[in-house]
């Protein structure tokens, strides 16, 4: 058992100080130390994307990053998407468009989609599919997820237009 290291980071907008062992991944640290269990363990090899979080605005697999590497970083997990208990547009579109079934992959998809929309508010379907290529879903067949992200993008750009399109 190696000794624990103190790490200071900003997690979902809050400054946080925590202790972790160097061998703990960021995913383990989030789930077991900070009790943020939204990020999921899937493959532990960077293939499935269920553990995706944002580190300084970029999507990364938290299973392939050490908790100690979070020092000084700004981290957003799926728990950081809603504001004071109100779901984000993206989360609502996932619900409206039935873009999830079992839900295990959903936190990763939401975080990857947020990373995309933060940088590119008007993505093409191709760009959405490329941005989500590192997230695997075995239930939906992806189509509803892609549609939800495109709908969310349209709604974020101009709320009226999306409502008109829905009718």
């Amino acid at each position: 058992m190696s000794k624990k290291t103190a790490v200071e980071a900003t997690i979902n907008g809050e400054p946080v100080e925590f202790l972790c062992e160097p061998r703990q991944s960021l995913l383990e640290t989030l789930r077991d130390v900070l009790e943020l269990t939204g990020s999921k363990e899937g493959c532990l090899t960077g293939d499935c994307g269920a553990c995706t979080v944002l580190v300084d605005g970029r999507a990364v697999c938290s299973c392939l990053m050490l908790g100690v590497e979070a020092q000084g970083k700004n981290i957003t997990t799926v728990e950081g998407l809603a504001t004071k208990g109100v779901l984000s547009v993206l989360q609502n579109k996932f619900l409206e468009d039935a873009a999830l079934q079992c839900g295990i992959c959903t936190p990763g998809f939401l975080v990857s989609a947020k990373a995309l929309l933060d940088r590119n508010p008007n993505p093409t379907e191709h760009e959405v599919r490329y941005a989500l290529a590192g997230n695997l879903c075995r239930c939906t067949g992806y189509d509803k997820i892609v549609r939800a992200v495109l709908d969310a993008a349209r709604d974020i750009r101009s709320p009226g237009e999306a409502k008109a399109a829905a009718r």
Partner: protein
Amino acid sequence: MILARPGGFQVLHAINYEAPTTLDEAVSILKTHGENARPLCGGTDLIIQLRAGVRRTEHIVDVKKIKELQVLSFDAKKGLRLGAAVPCIEIHESDVMRRHYPGLTEAAHIIGSLQIQNRASVGGNLCNGSPAGDATPALIALGARARIVGPSGEREVPVEDFVVSPGRTMLKPGELLVELLVPPPPPQSSDAYLRFIPRNEMDIAVVGVGAALTLDGDKVKAARIALGAVAPTPILAGKAADALIGRKLDDAALEAAGRAASQACSPIDDMRGTAEFRLHIAAVLTRRALSIAAERAKKN
């Protein structure tokens, strides 16, 4: 790859973590622990290998805080300096890289998913020593050199000499890859990287080909062709380039280069493809990569 996993959270064995901010400090830590230390960049190979037990290292030396490893700069006379820890995504987002080194840029942009590209570096891809690393043939084609520091000073080696066998490099204990130095592209030159995989994204190369060439009017003045996943290490196919020099890049020249590239390969049969298939694809991708590089070169 982890084939079977007993129940419970799979953890890394106990490790020590250090994050030096200078090259001297990093070399000193690496020297102290020798074979028992390993530099960490994006961790997208290393952490998986430690978890799976295929590499054992007690001392992780996070080198991302060393400024020399984060340099990405281009000078028309001196060429490119690419720090070993620069993440792939920064290469793709760099106008200079897309303009002057499109082949290396496309290689960096097909390594894994965005989650991987946001962490993984071209330097790390090289140090991982995989025969199938995508960035390595692209670097070799460009004539890149690796700048290494270690306990007995600095040295530079051509990238084609860097990987010595699958998963092993010529780095000695205590040595660290600092940056990759790529010559400036001559007029009428460009590069391209193509990879064959059975799907659109997220797979390991069955064959990868990097090609760089310089034209003189409609004749080929200089060329370098490098291949991945067709031998125990990435290879430079010197004879494939020789087949082009002084010739027009017509079908016959492309055919000759493709044949020579294929002859330079010593592939294996594995789950990704047979040796026979790889030999065929090596020739096809060589022709195509050269054609793309030539089209680009005409615009430069």
